[in-house]
């Protein structure tokens, strides 16, 4: 009786090494594939707590989202929108946790030619306490320094008294998105 294997031992090693080489090259390529325009185009970074809808907001503001990777921020979604005269790049640090925001990764963000920051509060049930989110917002203001920071939320209520100039948007009804995009464009010379 013979229990013969599909591949001989050396063939198995060749097969596995080939699989690894293909996968590794592909993953490495996607990690280092950073377009030149990522650092040169005027950008708007969308920050906010986890599951606040940052990716959805970027998709609403500029639908053709692409992904790239950077050292400190891991995965960046970027999407370019043009009004015919100017181009603006909306950047979504998809896997980036706001709790990990520090001087080091702010430096990484500063490599981008950013002109504005949109801070999206999460007011959905089960989200982080609003006080914690406000602390995150203030920390963002402090770390980024002088920048056009636009706070937005889908419900204002409590936030209106605590955050100056906060804007109301609706990702479902798409309210306030065009005016948000226009004010971002207005901030770019």
């Amino acid at each position, binding site marked *: *009786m*013979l*229990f*013969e*294997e*599909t*591949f*001989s*031992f*050396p*063939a*198995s*090693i060749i097969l*596995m*090494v080939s*699989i*690894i*080489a293909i*996968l*590794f090259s592909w*993953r*490495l390529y996607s*990690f280092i594939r950073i377009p030149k325009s990522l650092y040169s185009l005027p950008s708007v970074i969308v920050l906010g707590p986890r599951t606040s809808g940052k990716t959805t907001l970027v998709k609403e503001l500029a639908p053709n989202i692409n992904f790239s*990777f950077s*050292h400190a921020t*891991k995965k960046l979604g970027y999407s370019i929108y043009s009004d015919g005269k100017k181009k603006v790049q909306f950047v979504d640090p998809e896997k980036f946790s706001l709790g990990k925001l520090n001087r080091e990764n702010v430096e990484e963000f500063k490599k981008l030619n950013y002109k504005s920051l949109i801070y999206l509060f999460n007011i959905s049930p089960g989200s982080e306490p609003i006080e914690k989110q406000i602390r995150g917002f203030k920390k963002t203001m402090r770390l980024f320094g002088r920048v056009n920071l636009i706070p937005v939320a889908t419900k204002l209520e409590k936030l209106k008294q605590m955050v100056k100039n906060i804007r109301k948007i609706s990702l479902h009804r798409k309210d306030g998105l065009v005016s948000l995009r226009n004010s971002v464009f207005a901030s770019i010379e």
Partner: protein
Amino acid sequence: MNESAESEMKLYLSLLLFVILLNISIVLATVVLHEAGHFTVGNYFECDDIKIVLYDADTSSTYTQMSCSPDTPLLLLALGCFLFVVPFAMAFLILKDNPMRHFAWVILGFNLLIGFGDIELLTKTSIIPFITGIIGLFLIVVGESLLINKYLLLIEKRL
């Protein structure tokens, strides 16, 4: 290429070499444990002349050979390929945050892929072994992707 890009590339290439060497060790261990499973079950059913051949130059194959009495259950002899490989794979899942835990899927997938002949012996058709082979290949690709991704993220953190 500037100095920092060169050192990054060296780091990536050393990671590739590391992952390849790890995989060769895992493939060797899985093949041996796969054959050891057949060997142990054959031994249990008192089969004679049991031999594990890692590489037969005449047939370019790897196999376990034994002479068993006609009433020996073929099903159990064929299923012996999972006897040591499954616990071996499961042991990797204990390594919680270590990227090496994803070797569990690679080992299980690889075992299904090389066990094509064993499953064919059991089912007497080639469609089921073909499907399990595809599942095996899928598990290998998923496991290796997760493993490589985790290691690359570790490197990215260091840079």
